[in-house]
């Protein structure tokens, strides 16, 4: 019968496509595995105590990532300090306060567009604005602020999404006993969305930690054989912000520097630095997933 044959043919197509789909899905995953194995294969041998405690050197087997991981930590600190309050505040405004008007629409479209701007463009903006206009120089401060602007849309969107899951009845319950708007936000909206916000912040920081393009344009150095000045001093007021003006390097820049060299031995260092960086981003993503899970368990609507 013709119709039977036809159906059989169509079912075959179905089967074939289901296989094609599986293969397509595996393209990404197999590549990810290959990348991780390749990196581990090349880099594991270099991961020893000395690698983490030594400054870069022109001798590949003596070179380490001390200045790079310290730089990464310090820059991330500045980034978080700038991006979290700004992003959360903007997210709270857009969800809880913003009236439906042209200004709000403009801000919303603008944030969506900022998320699509190539990261290197942020670097160019920071070069013109922070480095030269504001005279921050090629410093930790500039780097931290640049990455903060880069992840600001991520923090804002995460904040908004987290706030949106809180039902309106909770807001009304708070208002009904006489809370002011800000009391309602401080006592309810912020605590209940904290998990979602934190997840978004960590995802944002894990993106920032691997960024190198914008930092190259604002002049991250690749050979730094010293650490930024300590924030604590022996004399009054015991705190110093000298470190903010310090030149710096970060892990991805250090890795880039090593991979750009012709010698094979430096490539191994690059792999080890890349491996360290991967471990950091994976740990951050894992932490984000864990926090999201914990908060979902604690607060159910």
């Amino acid at each position, binding site marked *: 019968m013709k119709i039977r044959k036809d159906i059989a043919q169509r079912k075959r*197509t*179905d089967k074939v*496509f*289901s296989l094609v*789909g*599986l293969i*397509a899905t595996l*393209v*990404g*995953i197999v*590549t*990810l595995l*290959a*990348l991780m194995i*390749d*990196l581990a294969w090349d880099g594991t041998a270099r991961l020893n105590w000395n690698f983490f405690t030594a400054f870069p050197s022109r001798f590949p087997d003596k070179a380490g990532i001390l200045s790079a991981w310290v730089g990464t930590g310090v820059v991330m600190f500045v980034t978080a300090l700038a991006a979290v*309050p700004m992003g959360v*505040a*903007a997210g709270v*405004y*857009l969800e809880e306060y913003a009236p439906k008007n042209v200004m709000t629409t*403009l*801000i919303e479209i*603008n944030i969506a567009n*900022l998320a*699509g*701007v*190539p*990261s*290197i*463009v*942020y*670097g*160019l*903006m920071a*070069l*013109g*604005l922070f480095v030269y206009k504001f005279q921050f120089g090629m410093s930790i401060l500039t780097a931290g602020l640049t990455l903060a602007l880069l992840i*600001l849309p991520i923090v*804002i969107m995460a904040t908004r999404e987290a706030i949106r899951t809180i039902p309106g009845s909770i807001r009304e319950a708070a208002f009904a006993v*006489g809370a*002011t708007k*800000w009391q309602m936000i401080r006592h309810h909206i912020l605590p209940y969305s904290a998990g979602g916000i934190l997840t978004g912040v960590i995802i944002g920081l894990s*993106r920032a*930690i*691997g*960024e*190198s*393009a914008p930092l*190259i*344009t604002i002049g991250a150095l690749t050979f730094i054989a010293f650490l930024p000045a300590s924030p604590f001093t022996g004399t009054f007021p015991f705190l110093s912000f000298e470190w903010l003006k310090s030149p710096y390097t970060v892990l991805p820049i250090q890795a*880039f520097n090593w*991979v*750009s060299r012709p010698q094979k031995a430096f490539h191994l260092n690059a*792999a080890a630095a*890349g491996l360290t*960086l*991967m471990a950091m*981003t*994976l740990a951050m993503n894992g932490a984000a997933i864990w926090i999201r899970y914990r908060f979902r368990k604690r607060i159910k609507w």
Partner: protein
Amino acid sequence: MSLVTHRASNRPVTRETSLPGGVHRLSPLPRLRGPGLLQRWQERAIQATLFLAAASSIAITLGIVGILGFESLAFFKQVSLFTFLTDTQWTPLFDDAHYGIMPLVAGTATVAAVALCLALPVGTITAIYLSEYAPHRVREVVKPFLELLTAVPTVVYGYFALLFVTPLLRHFIPSLPGFNMLSAGLVIGVMIIPYVSSLSEDAMRAVPMHLREASYAMGATRFQTSTRVVFPAALSGVAAAYVLGFSRAIGETMVVAIAAGMQPHLTFNPMEPAATITAYIVQVSLGDLPHGSLGYQTIFAAGLTLMLMTLVFNIGGHVLRKRFREKY
């Protein structure tokens, strides 16, 4: 500090508080006035601060447009737009300086084309598979792994392209140079698969069940339903995913800077090394160009070109999405 300033009312409160089951009587609460002047002011100040935080995103955009525009303007005072668009060489740092952006645009376009040739089909098929075919368990396992692809630092992708993919490709194409756009493009392609697939999948899963049921009720197979009903219905969201993928592909920097070489070279052949716009910016930034020099301004002109390319595609995508927006 207390947010509420309160005072006893001048109205005598005489109400009995005889509570059911109460042990003893409480004195009545002092009657409240609403928030005082201080608190009203505080509420306003908070709202204004939050508004400033939200509005600062516009300042960022203005900063980007302003800086790129300002420096590019200085550049175009010395190099005519005509030369910029028609000269076939880009050698601003040589003694024999040429300022034709085309070689960089060609490099960018070639790398992006390679990346999209991989990412769009693979990402779309992945999305269809995950949305329409894959059992729940498979999807739950696969999705986080796919999303991990976006968490890998780009410099690691660059390493992978240069030291794994290129040697691998050379087994099949022995003439492939050490730096080439092919392996950079392929790696960027894999990198943007999750951007394409996850947005597309969201759009497909948003297609209501009754459309699928209508298709199945006509005797259509899963494949026919997916490709002829679900995919067209989700086209608007899929277009958004493609635009995002495109933006990522042309804006990607480190992979091309590491694996594609940094020589501006007017070619569309992915087997050759060439510089993209982003790679050029990196190359100049690594050197030591004095602030305000023509060389310094070139990276802003290049950056502006990149922004405009992104913008054109975003607007195109927007138009497409409007045209294909399905009402259901």
